[in-house]
C-alpha cells in the first residue's frame, strides 16, 4: 500500500470514518489540510437496503444488525458485555453509527451543559449552549436537517434548513392530546431530507432509517460528508484497523500502526492525530496505546480513560388505536418529540430527564416480536389474527431516551482474553443502571402511557426492558479544564499529548437525555475549527 507516511507526512490523521471523523475531515480538506483517514470497515452496501421489497423485514435484521457481536462482520471487534446491563451497539464502517441511526437530530438543552451548576451533580461542560449554538446551526446546514425553528424547549435562533417531516395521523393525534394536557411537543427534528438537498433525496417515508436508507434521504455521513471529503483530496483507507497510536520521544503522537485486511501491518505518520472511534473504540485505542511514558494508556494521567461510560437506558411505550394510522410508514425518524419532562423536578424523586420521540411501529413481522410487545402479550396461537389486526397500522410508540449519570464504575476496559480477528485485544464493558435511571425511566414510561391514552389509545404496552439498546456510547474520555479530572480540554485536545485530539461522544462530561449525533457533530465542528486556527498560527510561526 502506498502510504503517505513513507514519503510525506500528512497534516492530519483521523482514526474512524463516522460522524465526528467526517465533520473533521471535510472541514480540514476545505481549509487545504492534507488528511488521511483510517477506517476498519468498508462502505455500506445499499444493495442490501431492501425497504422496497417484500423480504425487507426478514433480511434487515441480518444485513443491518446493530450489535457487533451478533453481526460478526470482518470489521467488527468483540465487545464483551456480560458484565453490562446494556449491550453496546455500533456500525463499524464508513459512516459509522449514522448508517443505522434513526436520524433523530436533537440539540442538547442549555441545562445539559450546566448539570453541576443547576442540579448539583456530575459536572458542567467547559462551554455553554450559547457557545455551541452557532455550530449547531452550521452543522444542521452541512448535514441536511429538517425541522422547525422556534421550539419552546430551546432558546431562539436559526433552525434547520428544511421543513419538518409531516406530523402524520399519529403525530397529529398526539399533538392534539398534548395541547389538551398542556404538555410540550414540537415537529420532530430529523437528519432526513424533506426536499432535495445537496446529495440527499427527499424522504419517501418507507420507515427504514434504522436498516440502511434505500432512498438516499437520510443524512448518514457515508452519503453526504465522505464523498465530498474524498473529492476534496482526503485519503480514506478502508479495511485499516488501528492497533496502536505511536508516541515520539518528544511526547507527541507520530501516527498510528494499523493492520490491513490481509493481516499486514503498516505505519501511518501524521503531524496531528484525531481519534473518532466512538465511546468504546476510542478508549480501547488509548488503552491499547500504553507505553513506557504512558503505562496506563495514552492520555490517561487522570485515570479516566474508559471510565464514566454512559449509554442512555431506553424505553418504549406503545399505544393501540381504533383509527387506521398506516403506522408502518413514515420517517423513522420521529414525527414529533416531547421535552415536557426533560428538566429536573426534585419532587419526582430523581434528577435529570428524558426526551421522547414518536415513531412508527413497523410492518407485520414486527408485530410478532417480543419487543416492544412483551412476552406476556405474545401474539401466537388462536388470537393471532385479531392481535395482528389490532397492532398493524393502528399503533404508535414513544421512544424514550433517558439520561444516565456518569459513574466511574461504568467503564470500558481491554478484554484480558478475547481478541479481534487481527489479534488485537477486544473491549469489555462494565455497566450497571443506577437507581436514578430506573426511577427516571419508570416515571417517563407512566407519563408516556398517559400521553397515548389522552391521544385515544384504548390499550397501551410498556415495553419490557431489553439490553440491546446501547446506541449512544458516551463519556469515556471526558472533557474538562482540569487535567487531573479530565482527558481532553474543551476543544478535544488531549491534555497529556498536545497533538492528539478526540472529537467523538467519548468527550461528553454528562450524557444529556438526547440522541447525541447533533451535539457530536457540533462539538466536532467547534473542535476542528479551533484546531485549524491553532495549526495556522503554528505554520505562521514556523
Amino acid at each position, binding site marked *: 500500500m502506498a502510504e503517505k507516511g513513507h514519503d510525506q507526512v500528512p497534516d492530519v490523521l483521523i482514526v474512524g470514518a463516522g460522524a465526528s471523523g467526517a465533520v473533521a475531515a471535510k472541514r480540514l480538506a476545505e481549509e487545504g489540510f492534507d488528511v488521511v483517514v483510517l477506517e476498519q470497515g468498508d462502505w455500506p452496501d445499499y444493495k442490501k437496503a431492501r425497504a422496497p421489497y*417484500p423480504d425487507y423485514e426478514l433480511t434487515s435484521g*441480518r444485513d443491518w444488525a446493530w450489535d457487533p457481536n451478533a453481526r460478526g462482520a470482518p470489521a467488527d471487534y468483540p465487545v464483551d458485555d456480560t458484565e453490562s446491563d446494556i449491550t453496546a451497539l455500533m456500525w463499524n464502517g464508513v459512516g459509522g453509527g449514522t448508517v443505522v441511526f434513526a436520524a433523530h437530530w436533537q440539540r442538547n438543552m442549555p441545562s445539559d451543559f450546566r448539570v453541576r451548576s443547576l442540579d448539583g451533580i456530575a459536572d458542567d461542560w467547559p462551554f455553554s449552549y450559547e457557545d455551541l449554538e452557532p455550530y449547531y446551526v452550521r452543522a444542521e446546514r452541512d448535514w441536511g436537517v429538517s425541522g422547525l425553528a422556534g421550539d419552546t424547549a430551546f432558546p431562539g435562533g436559526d433552525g434547520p434548513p428544511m421543513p*419538518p417531516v*409531516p406530523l402524520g395521523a399519529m403525530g397529529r393525534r398526539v399533538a392534539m392530546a398534548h395541547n389538551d394536557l398542556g404538555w410540550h411537543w414540537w415537529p420532530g427534528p430529523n437528519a432526513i431530507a424533506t426536499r432535495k438537498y445537496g446529495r440527499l433525496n427527499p424522504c419517501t417515508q418507507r420507515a427504514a432509517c434504522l436498516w440502511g436508507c434505500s*432512498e438516499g434521504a437520510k443524512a448518514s455521513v457515508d452519503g453526504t460528508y465522505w464523498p465530498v471529503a474524498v473529492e476534496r483530496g482526503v485519503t480514506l483507507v478502508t479495511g485499516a484497523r488501528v492497533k496502536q497510536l505511536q508516541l515520539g520521544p518528544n511526547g507527541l503522537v507520530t501516527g498510528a500502526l494499523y493492520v490491513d485486511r490481509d493481516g499486514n501491518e503498516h505505519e501511518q505518520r501524521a503531524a496531528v492525530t484525531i481519534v473518532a472511534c466512538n465511546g468504546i473504540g476510542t478508549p480501547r485505542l488509548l488503552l491499547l496505546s500504553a507505553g513506557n511514558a504512558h503505562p496506563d494508556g495514552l492520555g490517561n494521567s487522570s485515570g479516566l480513560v474508559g471510565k464514566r461510560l454512559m449509554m442512555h437506558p431506553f424505553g418504549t411505550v406503545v399505544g393501540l388505536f381504533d383509527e387506521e394510522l398506516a403506522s408502518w410508514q413514515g420517517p423513522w425518524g420521529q414525527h414529533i418529540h416531547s421535552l415536557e419532562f426533560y428538566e429536573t423536578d426534585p419532587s419526582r424523586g430523581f434528577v435529570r430527564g428524558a426526551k421522547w420521540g414518536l415513531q412508527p411501529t413497523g*410492518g*407485520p413481522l414486527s408485530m410478532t416480536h417480543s419487543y416492544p410487545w412483551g412476552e406476556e402479550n405474545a401474539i401466537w396461537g388462536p388470537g393471532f389474527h385479531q392481535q395482528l389486526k389490532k397492532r398493524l*397500522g393502528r399503533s404508535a410508540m414513544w421512544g424514550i431516551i433517558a439520561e444516565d449519570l456518569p459513574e466511574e464504575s461504568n467503564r470500558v476496559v481491554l478484554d484480558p482474553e478475547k481478541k479481534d480477528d487481527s489479534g488485537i485485544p477486544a473491549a469489555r464493558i462494565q455497566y450497571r443502571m443506577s437507581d436514578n435511571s430506573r426511577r427516571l425511566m419508570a416515571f417517563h414510561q407512566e407519563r408516556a402511557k398517559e400521553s397515548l391514552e389522552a391521544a385515544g389509545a384504548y390499550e397501551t404496552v410498556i415495553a419490557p426492558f431489553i439490553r440491546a439498546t446501547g446506541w449512544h456510547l458516551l463519556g469515556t474520555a471526558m472533557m474538562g479544564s482540569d487535567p487531573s479530572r479530565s482527558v481532553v480540554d474543551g476543544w478535544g485536545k488531549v491534555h497529556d499529548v498536545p497533538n492528539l485530539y478526540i472529537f467523538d461522544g467519548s468527550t461528553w462530561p454528562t450524557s444529556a437525555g438526547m440522541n447525541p449525533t447533533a451535539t457530536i457533530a457540533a462539538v466536532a465542528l467547534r473542535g476542528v475549527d479551533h484546531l485549524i486556527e491553532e495549526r495556522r498560527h503554528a505554520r505562521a510561526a514556523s
Partner: protein
Amino acid sequence: MSPALASFHHGRREVLAAVADLLIPSGDGMPSASEAGAAGRWLDEVLQLRPDFGPPLAAVLDRLLGADPSAALIKLRTDDPAGFGVLAEVVAGGYFLNPKVRSAIRYPGQQSVAIAHDEPPDYEQDGLIASVIARGPIYRRTP
C-alpha cells in the same frame, strides 16, 4: 436445490407445518401458516433469503420430531427461547411473504410516499403549533 434446502426433507416439513399451525392457526378468514405455504414454498424462500436460519431451525425441528406438537412447543419456548425465536421468525416471515396474506391484511409493503408540502403545513392546522407557542418556553436558561 441447495443442500441447505434439501436438508429440509418431508419429515422436517411435516413437523414444521404442525407447530406452525399452532403459532398461526386459521381463523378470521385467514389461512393457517401451513395453508399459506409457510412450511412449503415460502419456507424455501425464507431459507434462501436467510440461510443463517437453516441450521438452528433444523436443530429445533429435529428436537420436536415425534413429540406432541403442542407440548413440545410450550417446552421449546421455555427451555430454548432463541430456538423458539428462530422458529417463530421463519414461520411468520414465510407467512407474510405470501402475497395473498399481505393483501388480506391490507399491508402493501413499505411504499414510497412523497412528502406533501401542504399549505399551511399540518403542524399549523387548527392552531396546533400556536397552542405550544402560547404556553411559552419550558427550558432552564444557562446560569
